[in-house]
Each structure stands twice: as structure tokens, then as C-alpha cells.
């Protein structure tokens, strides 16, 4: 078994997540392999077999069992990590709510993949957007370096005594999971030092302080429980910021809850998340070369949604589009678009905002397609007329 001894390496997104997990050395990992997450579980199983980690690795028969085992181990005070994707996450659905409501700081790496039907193993964000109301913190990654860093940060965020909530680290299937990129690793000691020891405030095995988890709550109390959980998630935002800043101070890499790219004087902006944020930056640079005041906004933290940061970044633009890889059938708009719109309304910001759904089921989103979004925004900025709000990029039959 070969250990990585260099700081600068080439790893896939899955490989980077597995390497972070090895360095984190969780007490418990319960996971079930699913494309395109498989390499994470394979690699980690090798680490367990090779004695490189002290983790209790639980081989389960399904994702429902994986997250159930995680809930049990986390409640018992064990640092717990899992990984899944798409149908696997969907199968976990009922337990996701239980993990969050019981304030169990599980870290899950989810490799974003489309949901059936039709069966599709490729990338979009339908899976984790479908879990957006489960009460988990959701962080999206733009590149492989960010996958590695966010997995390590995720432990600190989840386990912070004032957070105590599960965290999903989301990376785009294949585009990141199977793409090898250059990244810089921390040493094992740096990771150990940064995450520290897990000291749960309560645990089921502490017989001196017995607690009940998973009890029933009648109408007299259920509402308060749910509000408390929601309040905790809102409050987690400042902890996400603080952990990222500490990470940045120590290791010179920091991401923020949003990243405003060339937004200072921007008149046109595309708001997006995940690996699309990178391709969008490339397009922004091209428009800037032509003197067009284009910018982009990356949503790193999707739950809790950074309302103020999003509104502040967009307050001066003439036109903006939200670009996302998920569709919300029957809704007034897709999930990220609706959140951005809500954030602007909250903060009293008026912007001409349109929606673009793109890349479902792994359809490639090249720069020339994103260029057309900026061209559309130019038109809106010039005419002042928004026209059609919901748009679909590179969709057959859509004009």
C-alpha cells in the first residue's frame, strides 16, 4: 500500500475525497458503493484493509442501512463519515431528516448524479437539491482541490458545538469525481490538528448523562423542535465562514460561502454552483477581454442559503441569470433560481433575474453555451425587458 508523500499530486475528485477521509481517520464509515462514488468506497476499503486507518468500516446492504448505521454511530459519539450518490441518496431520504433533527454531525460526500428515470449515471444536481429541506448543511465544490479542502472543513463545521448538524459535501459526478487534477495536500498532522478530537456534547453511551434520541413529540412540542433545528441551521452560516477563514489562515486556501468573480463593477452576472462555476469564470474572462462588464457568483454554501452575501453581490447588476443543473417540475422556478430570487426579495434588491436549466443527465455545458447566456443578459440590460424568465440551455426543440 503506497502512501502519498508529496504535497502536490494528481488525484481524481473521488481519490481526493478518499485521501481526505484517510487523513480524517473517522471512527466509523458505513457506505454502499454506487457509480460515480464507487472509487471513494473502494479506496477507503483499501485503507481499512491495509491498516492505514483505525476506522470501523461497516459493509451494509443498502444506502438506507448505511445512513441508519451512521445515525447510530454518530449518536453513540463516534466521528462518522459516509459517501453516496443519486439513487443512494434518494434511498437515504427518510434518515436524512432524522440525522439532522437529532443533531448528528455526520459528514457525507455526495457525488452529484442524475436521478432515474430514465436511468442515467451522469452528472446533475437533482439528487442533493431533492434533499435541500432535510436540514443538512450543503457545500458544493468547483474543483478537486475544493473537494479535498471541503471534506476536511466539513468535519470541523459539523462537529462545532454550536452547529452539531450533518454536512453534505457535493461534487459533480464524473466531471470532478473521475477527473484527475493537480491539487495540494496537507500533511496528516496538519489535518489531525485542524479537525481536532471529536467531543460530542452528548452521547447515547454516556450512562452518567442519559439522554433520549428519536423520541416522539406531540403537537405541543413538535413545532418548537423543528424551529430549533431550523434556527440552528441558520446560525451555522457564521460557523461555516469561521471554519473557512481559519482554514485559509492556516493553509492559504479559502472559499467563502459565495465567491464573487470579477463582480466589483459587473453589469451582467451568472449565478451558479459546482464545477459549472469554473467554466463560467472562463467565459467571464473572455467577455472582460472584450470590455464587457461581466462577472459571476459561485454559491459555495447552498444550505443554509447565504441570503445577505448573494443579495450584496448582485445589488448593482443590470441583469443576472441563475444557471443550475436541476429542474423543479411544477415549481415557479428551479431550486437555486427560487432561492436567489428569494434572497433578493429579502434584501430589497431589484434585479432582472432569469433562470437557465442546463446539463441535465450529464449533457456537457461548454463555454460557447454559457456565452449565449451572457448574450441574453446583454439584451435584457440594453432593452430593459426581461421576456421569458425560465430558459433551458441546449435543449432540443427549445427556442
Amino acid at each position: 500500500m503506497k502512501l502519498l508523500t508529496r504535497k502536490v499530486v494528481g488525484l481524481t475528485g473521488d481519490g481526493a475525497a478518499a485521501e481526505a477521509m484517510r487523513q480524517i481517520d473517522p471512527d466509523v464509515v458505513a457506505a454502499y458503493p454506487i457509480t460515480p462514488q464507487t472509487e471513494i468506497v473502494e479506496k477507503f476499503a483499501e485503507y481499512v484493509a491495509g491498516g492505514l486507518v483505525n476506522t470501523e468500516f461497516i459493509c451494509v446492504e443498502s444506502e438506507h442501512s448505511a445512513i441508519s448505521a451512521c445515525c447510530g454511530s454518530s449518536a453513540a459519539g463516534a466521528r462518522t463519515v459516509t459517501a453516496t450518490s443519486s439513487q443512494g441518496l434518494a434511498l437515504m431520504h427518510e434518515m436524512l431528516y432524522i440525522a439532522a433533527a437529532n443533531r448528528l454531525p455526520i459528514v457525507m460526500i455526495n457525488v452529484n448524479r442524475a436521478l432515474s428515470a430514465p436511468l442515467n449515471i451522469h452528472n446533475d444536481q437533482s439528487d442533493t437539491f431533492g434533499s435541500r429541506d432535510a436540514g443538512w448543511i450543503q457545500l458544493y465544490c468547483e474543483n478537486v482541490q475544493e473537494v479535498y479542502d471541503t471534506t476536511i472543513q466539513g468535519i470541523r463545521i459539523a462537529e462545532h458545538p454550536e452547529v452539531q448538524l450533518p454536512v453534505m459535501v457535493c461534487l459533480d459526478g464524473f466531471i470532478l469525481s473521475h477527473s484527475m487534477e493537480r491539487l495540494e495536500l496537507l500533511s496528516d498532522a496538519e489535518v489531525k490538528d485542524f479537525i481536532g478530537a471529536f467531543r460530542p456534547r452528548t452521547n447515547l453511551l454516556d450512562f452518567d448523562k442519559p439522554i433520549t434520541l428519536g423520541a416522539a413529540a406531540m403537537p405541543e412540542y413538535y413545532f418548537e423542535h423543528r424551529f430549533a433545528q431550523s434556527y440552528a441551521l441558520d446560525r451555522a452560516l457564521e460557523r461555516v465562514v469561521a471554519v473557512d477563514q481559519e482554514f485559509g489562515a492556516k493553509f492559504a486556501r479559502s472559499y467563502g460561502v459565495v465567491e464573487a468573480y470579477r463582480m466589483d463593477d459587473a453589469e451582467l452576472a451568472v449565478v451558479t454552483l459546482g464545477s459549472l462555476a469554473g467554466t463560467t469564470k472562463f467565459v467571464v474572462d473572455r467577455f472582460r477581454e472584450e470590455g464587457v462588464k461581466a462577472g459571476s457568483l459561485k454559491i459555495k454554501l447552498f444550505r443554509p442559503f447565504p441570503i445577505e452575501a448573494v443579495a450584496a453581490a448582485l445589488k448593482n447588476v443590470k441583469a443576472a441569470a441563475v444557471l443550475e443543473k436541476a429542474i423543479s417540475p411544477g415549481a415557479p422556478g428551479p431550486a437555486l433560481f427560487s432561492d436567489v430570487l428569494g434572497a433578493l426579495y429579502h434584501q430589497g434588491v431589484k434585479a432582472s433575474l432569469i433562470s437557465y436549466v442546463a446539463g441535465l443527465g450529464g449533457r456537457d455545458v461548454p463555454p460557447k453555451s454559457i456565452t449565449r447566456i451572457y448574450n441574453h443578459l446583454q439584451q435584457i440590460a440594453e432593452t430593459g425587458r426581461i421576456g421569458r424568465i425560465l430558459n433551458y440551455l441546449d435543449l432540443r426543440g427549445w427556442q
Partner: protein
Amino acid sequence: MSNKMLEIRWHGRGGQGVVLASRFMASSAIRENLYFQAFPFFGPERLGAPVVAFTRISNEPINLHCAIEEPDVVVVLDPSLLGVVKVTQNLKASGTSVVNHAGIPQDLKNGTQRRVFAVDADRISREELGRVMPNTPMVGALVKAVGLIGLESVFSEFEEQFSQRFKPELIRQNLNAIRRAYEEVREV
């Protein structure tokens, strides 16, 4: 895409180590302190079926996360693909093809200024490794054709990556295959 970035598209058949070659070429760029990305085209994977993979190498961090549309270079690991797959599709007018071919490959210039390099990687791998495994020699040929990465960087990266997986004998054979392809590749 820009002068600072080299975009490579790899063509081969399932089982020839196309993805491995695309990744190995990319990670060799570490030695030159360059940035890189390598990713397969995610289609159905079957032994012997045409396979495509991509490598980006750049002197600055790479923001792009999409397929390569207009490659600077195409590398063809299997000569039998030439009549089957349009390997030069969307290759830049100033682009380069590097082909595993025993003779003179059919016209890949299509009336353009594109450069074409050929090397008999099947024969080299057969002689050096005892079996047809054109992926490592084709990296040697590619490095010679595009010049971006030094042969020494490729050698040290190969040893670093495979020294624990391969016996020293196999490492030496692969390095010989890479060196021979580097020396024997010729512009058509």
C-alpha cells in the same frame, strides 16, 4: 483554447490504457510545475470499443470543467481507428496529430497546415514489453511532438507512480518503450 493551455484528445480502444495514458501525461506535468486535468469521455465502456479521453495542461490553474471541443493535439493509440473514427474532428487548423502507425498514416492534414507525427508503438511495445501495449510509448511520442514536458519529467513521474506496483524489470521496459518512441517518432 488559449496560448497558455494545451488541450489533448486521446483516441484508443477499451483495454489499451487510454485513460491511464491521459492521466499519466497530465501528472507528468507536475514535474514542470504546470497545472493539468485528465478525464475520460464517459460512454459505455467495453473492451475493444473506441474510447476517448482528454488532457489539459496549462501554466495557470484551469477553470474549465467541460469536454475539449477543439483540441490542439489528438493522439491515436490504435491505427485501426483511422478508418472508423473521425479522429481529426474539430482539431485546430494549427493542430497536431500523433498516430501509432507502422507506415504513413492516411492523410490527416485534410489540406490544412496541421502537423502529423507517426510512430510504430505496437512494434516498440512488442519488442520492449513483449506484448502490444501502445499507451506508454505514445506518451513518449507525444512529448517529442509537443515539447511541453521534458522526457526526464516523464521518466521520474513513471518511476514515482509505478515503482510500487510494477517490478523494476517492467519499469525499465516501459521507460525503454517511452524513450524509443521519443526517438523514433517522425513527422509525416
